[in-house]
């Protein structure tokens, strides 16, 4: 279907209305709703008071679904804390299909490698609308090929929390995986065979969904101890299943520092940028992703802070075992953990009171009264593609098909004083700096530096940084020059052909539409 579109402030054509979703505002600058004048009113959600004698533990998943009052056309949600080991989405969708459900909106906090089942559900019409942060594999192909009835809505982690609190994303039934849960629904991710660490995304769903079902493979004696992440008063039902996921894929090894010399080299350059910019000092705050060069930056930061006896204030984000080690060593006073990238941190969350489980709204919702990312000093991020305007695409593969995740990328980039993209200058012969990224997820005005092994590009808005990095003797280049140097090796790839048909929209953290995703030819 074609929608009426306007050009937003980045010059991207975006729809102003999608039937069934409502009217949409075009993106008009990363901070345009953050000047103190913007007002929002939550739209109410109906909650039913449970019968006082109700036994929360349902006889089966089917019975829990029946008791939830779920109907065709409603919205269901999941968290993605079980990462690539998650079995719950598949389990629930299979049951819903058997029960004959159709036309559901699926609104998980994100989808990963274990969720090809969602593509099947889309093909069968069980799911016809999708709200998510990330997509991989078959789901990305399904969206890019236009199999959804309505455009997919891609949100950042902070943007999703905002949408849920506003009521623009209304969840009817949340199926929340619980590695440990008791009969009244107290749950946590820090114990059990499928322990996944923090449950920061689940916390928001639990608070705002009309009906909450805890799905567990580990029903413990009441009350759950030693930690309760989601309290019983938010949970309607508890369902016990054989397994909620594969523990070996919940801990995906994201804590291992890369040994790839190229990634290490980029990481070291990234570290030198942070140091030269003057942010590595007492009380600094820091966020880095897991895996690749971004985590490797943490290694250099750690060595430097140790050698210079610097204690930082806090780290946030996806927390890795590496960060938990830094907390233990006293390099940071506090960790705010929204999601844990590997299971080894569960011990730290459970027993270190300075390792704080934070919900997604606290983490990154730009409309609450103080989210963590807005106070960040430094964030180190990855990217699939960047462009000469410093826009970042973390969604689109080189073949034009969706295969990434918005995640906290745009939230942290907007909030941090220094946002750093670490990216190899080329991947498989395709250059990483384009004239124009296919899909803008993070706008260039919030990106300060792009670090590649062939040079560092500084956003011209940051003259101060440019001067500091030059003084430090770092290989700073104009982004056009850097792009040209890379293209001397790679050439310029042909444009990918798309239909005009819009199959997805990327919602910026503040609820405006920053870009559209089109059907692949």
């Amino acid at each position, binding site marked *: 279907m074609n929608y009426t579109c306007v050009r937003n402030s980045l010059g991207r054509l975006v729809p102003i209305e999608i039937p069934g979703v409502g009217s949409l505002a075009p993106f008009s600058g990363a901070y345009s709703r953050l000047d103190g004048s913007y007002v929002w009113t939550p739209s109410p959600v109906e909650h039913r008071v449970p019968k006082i004698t109700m036994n929360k533990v349902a006889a089966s998943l089917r019975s829990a679904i029946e008791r939830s009052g779920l109907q065709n056309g409603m919205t269901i949600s999941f968290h993605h804390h079980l990462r690539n080991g998650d079995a719950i989405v598949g389990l629930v969708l299979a049951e819903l299909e058997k029960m004959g459900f159709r036309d559901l909106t699926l609104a998980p906090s994100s989808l990963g490698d274990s969720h090809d089942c969602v593509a099947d559900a889309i093909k069968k019409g069980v799911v016809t609308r999708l709200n998510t942060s990330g997509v991989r594999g078959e789901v990305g192909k399904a969206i890019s090929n236009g199999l959804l009835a309505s455009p997919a809505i891609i949100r950042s982690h902070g943007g999703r929390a905002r949408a849920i609190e506003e009521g623009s994303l209304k969840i009817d039934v949340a199926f929340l995986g619980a590695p440990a849960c008791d009969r009244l629904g107290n749950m946590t991710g820090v114990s059990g065979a499928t322990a996944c660490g923090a449950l920061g995304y689940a916390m928001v769903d639990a608070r705002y969904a009309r009906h909450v079902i805890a799905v567990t493979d580990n029903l413990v004696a009441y009350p759950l101890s030693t930690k309760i992440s989601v309290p019983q008063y938010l949970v309607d039902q508890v369902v016990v299943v054989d397994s909620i996921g594969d523990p070996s894929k919940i801990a995906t090894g994201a804590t291992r520092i890369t040994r790839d*010399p190229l990634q*290490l*080299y980029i990481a070291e350059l990234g570290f030198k940028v942070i140091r030269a910019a003057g942010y590595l000092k007492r009380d600094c705050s820091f966020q880095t992703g897991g895996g690749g060069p971004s985590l490797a930056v943490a290694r250099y930061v750690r060595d430097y802070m140790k050698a210079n006896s610097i204690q930082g204030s806090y780290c946030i984000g996806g927390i890795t075992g590496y960060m938990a080690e830094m907390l233990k060593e006293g390099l940071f006073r506090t960790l705010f953990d929204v999601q844990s990238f590997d299971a080894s941190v569960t011990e730290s969350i459970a027993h270190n009171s300075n390792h704080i489980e934070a919900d997604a709204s606290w983490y990154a919702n730009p409309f609450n009264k103080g989210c963590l990312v807005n106070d960040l000093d430094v964030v180190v991020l990855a990217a699939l593609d960047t462009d000469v305007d410093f826009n970042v695409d973390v969604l689109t593969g080189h073949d034009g098909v969706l295969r990434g995740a918005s995640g906290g990328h745009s939230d942290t980039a907007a909030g941090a004083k220094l946002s750093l993209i670490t990216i190899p200058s080329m991947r498989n012969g395709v250059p990483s700096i384009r004239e124009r990224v296919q899909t803008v997820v993070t706008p260039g005005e919030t990106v300060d530096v792009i670090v590649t*092994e062939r040079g560092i590009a500084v956003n011209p808005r940051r003259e101060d940084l440019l001067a500091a990095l030059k003084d430090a*003797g770092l290989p700073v280049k104009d982004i056009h020059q850097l792009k040209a140097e890379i293209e001397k*090796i790679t050439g310029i790839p042909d444009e990918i052909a798309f239909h005009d048909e819009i199959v997805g929209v990327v919602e910026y953290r503040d609820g405006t539409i920053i870009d559209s995703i089109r059907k692949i030819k």
Partner: protein
Amino acid sequence: MTEAQQNHPMRSLLYIPGNNPGMLQNCAIYGSDAVIFDIEDSISISEKDAARKLVKHALTRLDFGRIRIVVRVNARDTDFFEADLEEIVPAKPHAIRLPKVDSAEDVLAADEIISRLEEKHGLPRGGIGVQAMLETARAIVNVNSIAASSRRLVGLTLGGQDLAADLGIRATKEGLELLYAKSAVVIAAKAYGLQAFDTVYTDVADLEGLRAQTAVGFSLGFSGKAAIHPSQIPVINSVYSPSEREVAKAAKVVAAAMEAEARGLGVISVDGKMVDAPVVSQARRTLELARLAGMEVPEL
């Protein structure tokens, strides 16, 4: 052989397998002073053609900036030797690293082929240097005649693993068993104005061991050391980089030499002490190393 070629200091030389396009493409970024594209030991027999072609294309198509490019070809006694030179010489590397050099004859044979190819392709004669790799007991016995063999020769190095095998000894991390061979190579190189390159340290995970072995090589008089992993480069570079004090002293010596020359004086004096020509040339070298290391060198 040009003066600049011979004297261009190289603290670290990174080996890159010649059949790996990604590594060839990125080899210049890791901070080594030279790279050695290998088409010998790291390349299996069935990959020789591919590696040779790939290295040639890399040399002609990619921009490696200021670093020196060396290509290690297959040994003279292999079927690949001549084909390697025919393909590589026209692509103008700074030097050819010649493995398994046992005698002066090996160098002269290479020199002859390279000279013929230079002429055929209209390249300046002697522009491409040769680094001879000594890897047998016989080579060590012949080291002086090898060093004296050809004006094309710019450096000597030894192949520690092969040499240990030839001697029937086990190569250790400390490398003391090769002390004599290393010293013999260094002294012959110095005697004939050549550079001397230390052999590789094979445990890439052990950077402390690398530092210790590199320091021994430096103290023996080597001018640089080969690396087999980018992580080894900063260690090697730091051992071979002069201290700030040494740089300051060298700058004084060079300044005095320049002043003496300008005033037509035969005698150079620094802080009231006479210095002679070798000290001046070592001081110039120290300054060059300092520049390579990105240190501040006073304007002279």
